[in-house]
């Protein structure tokens, strides 16, 4: 009985890792779609978003089954409930990636992107998502913590991008492109927040303490 339970828990872990990998792929595809104006990658990002949604439902079902049939306690219960929270954050990351890809599809030129630290934001967001999934895979508390700390960098970058975009609009550049860019920057910032949340759930699963406590 316990054996089945452990196997199911492990299966859950593997699925979570896969979902994390899908998120990483989606966000880097979306970023490339935007920065390199690659339409195919944009479509790929939207496909991945759907896969992520499926995965979320799958994992949710698995978690429910585990909770109802095995009635886990203590640490196991924490992992299952952390998993349930994590997947909703991952799903949001997938959504935002596909949103970025959609804006990238409609945007006419990405020449302005090199004038603001957009690429840096993308890199930072991707690395935070990667690190948070890594922290989960390895159960690495220190790494999870570093993701939470990194969020400030991304927030700061967002403010910087915003300032510079305001400057660009004021200097008479294409306003609608600037607004689209602001949206994308905001999405990156949100992705960072979700990565941060995932890291917090990893901390919770390991220590039983939630950062906001």
């Amino acid at each position: 009985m316990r054996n089945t339970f452990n196997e199911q828990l492990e299966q859950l872990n593997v699925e979570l890792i896969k979902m994390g990998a899908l998120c990483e792929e989606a966000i880097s595809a979306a970023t490339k779609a935007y920065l390199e104006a690659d339409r195919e990658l944009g479509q790929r990002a939207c496909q991945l978003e759907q896969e992520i949604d499926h995965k979320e439902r799958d994992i949710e079902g698995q978690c429910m089954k585990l909770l109802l049939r095995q009635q886990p306690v203590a640490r196991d219960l924490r992992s299952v409930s952390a998993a349930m929270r994590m997947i909703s954050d991952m799903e949001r990351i997938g959504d935002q990636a596909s949103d970025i890809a959609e804006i990238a599809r409609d945007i006419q030129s990405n020449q302005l992107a090199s004038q603001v630290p957009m690429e840096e934001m993308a890199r930072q967001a991707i690395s935070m998502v990667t690190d948070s999934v890594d922290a989960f895979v390895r159960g690495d508390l220190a790494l999870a913590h570093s993701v939470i700390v990194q969020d400030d960098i991304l927030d700061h970058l967002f403010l910087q991008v915003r300032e510079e975009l305001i400057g660009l609009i004021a200097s008479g550049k294409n306003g609608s492109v600037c607004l689209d860019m602001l949206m994308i920057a905001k999405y990156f910032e949100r992705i960072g927040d979700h990565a941060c949340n995932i890291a917090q759930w990893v901390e919770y699963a390991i220590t039983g303490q939630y950062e906001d406590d």
Partner: protein
Amino acid sequence: MTAKIFRNSMAVGISVFLLSVALFMGVLYQYFGNQLTEELETEAWLVAKGVETMGMDYLDGLKSSSRITWIDQDGTVLYDSVADPATMKNHADREEIQEAMLGTQGTARRESATLSEKTFYVARRLEDGTVIRLASAQYTVVVLLLSMVQPLLIILVVTLILAAVLASRLSKRMIQPILALDLEHPENCDTYDELAPLLTRIRRQNDTIGRQMELMGQRRQEFEALTENMSEGFVLLDQKGHILSYNTGTLRLLGVLPPAEEANVLALDRTDAFRKSVEQVLQGVRNQCRLDRGGRCVQLLADPVFRDNQVAGAVLVLVDVTEREQGEKMRREFTANVSHELKTPLTAISGMAEIISNGMVKPEDVPGFAGDIYKESQRLIALVEDIIHLSRLDEGGTDLRREQVDLLEVARKTVQRLQPLAKQAGVTLAVAGASLVMQGVPSVLEEMVYNLCDNAVKYNHKGGTVTLSVVPGESGGEVTVADNGIGIPAEDQERVFERFYRVDKSHSKEIGGTGLGLSIVKHGAALHDARVELKSTLGEGTTVRLIFP
């Protein structure tokens, strides 16, 4: 154990108790019965004497615990100490009376109707023929037992408590030495003799396990030493995708930290390609894929392991193929370049020859065309020669003979050969330095020095200088070719040694050359274990040093 001992001691206690109760009851009951009869006999004799002397008066004044009945010769009751004689039946048929009538004394014992009592009768015949009978009752065994229930129960309870206490004490004391057994070192244990065979056996098994563990440890160490020294990555998986074993090469190639014990293989890498490859291999399909890891290209070979026609696991081998990829790319480029370089002069030759053969050229112009054809074919020959040189050097120069070479001599010869060209370009060529004799392949060394000087003359200004100096060192020495020509831009300095690389692509045709000169220098230097150092400033000149160890 405690419960078993308790049950046993309880059983012993209770059975001893029951046996002794039965024994006492049996023996004592008999004894008391006999005593009672004897007493009754004595009393009957006394009462008989009393009645003989005093008659009824004696009976009236008598106080006795026994029941006394006086019976006439015909059996009529004359007196009874308990009941009214008038109501009593004739006693002539009673056993003890009849016995007494015949002799002098009769005894009998009868159970009472309720079974709770037993009555002893003793009858004695008087001299006048009447009979005195004494009766005394005794409780039966059952009644006696019933009356003793309470003390018996108390004794039972005490036995229970005693048995429990003893049992727990006993089992504790018995188990104590067993618990204190040191199973790691059973030979040092001083315990019950009965356990000796068990301990011997444990000792033997300990030895066997120890030996096997040691052997396994050794094997494992050997295995690890082998896999650790592989530059390739190596991962063993079980059929569920858990990592059984991996080497540090894996971590280096994938750029990950060591995963937890028995972690899922996805902890190593979770990219799409890797996941699919692992999924397939665990279904028994051999496959391979490419992973891009931070600029390095890693090839993953996944091989399933079968046992009884079932997938029992998988072996993943990771190979860094970055260099191979780069090599392949370079070879492809080289082939493309060679074909291009060969085709250009050939096209020119073929074109000119065609015009001549068609008779479209005036006879007086033919020598000019022939000169062009000659020039182009010379270029072709030079190119092919260079390629042959290079490919020979590529093979490691195994078929090239080494002999004593004086580099100063080589330098002088080269300068002589290049003097006409230098004069044409208005460049001064000079040799300096001392004799430097070393082991080397003369043709290659000549080619190297020639190419360097040729470049120095070609890429120079009018009135420039080229200095060739040979400086012997402690063991080897160096050859330096310095010019004050046009120099090489910093961004191109790294690439000039590549095959067919030209700094100024647009004027290469005017200047001539094959684009292979410096590549030959590089390979020739490698053949002689020498180092090539290039220093150049754009517009000021270039210095190339060949440092021989």
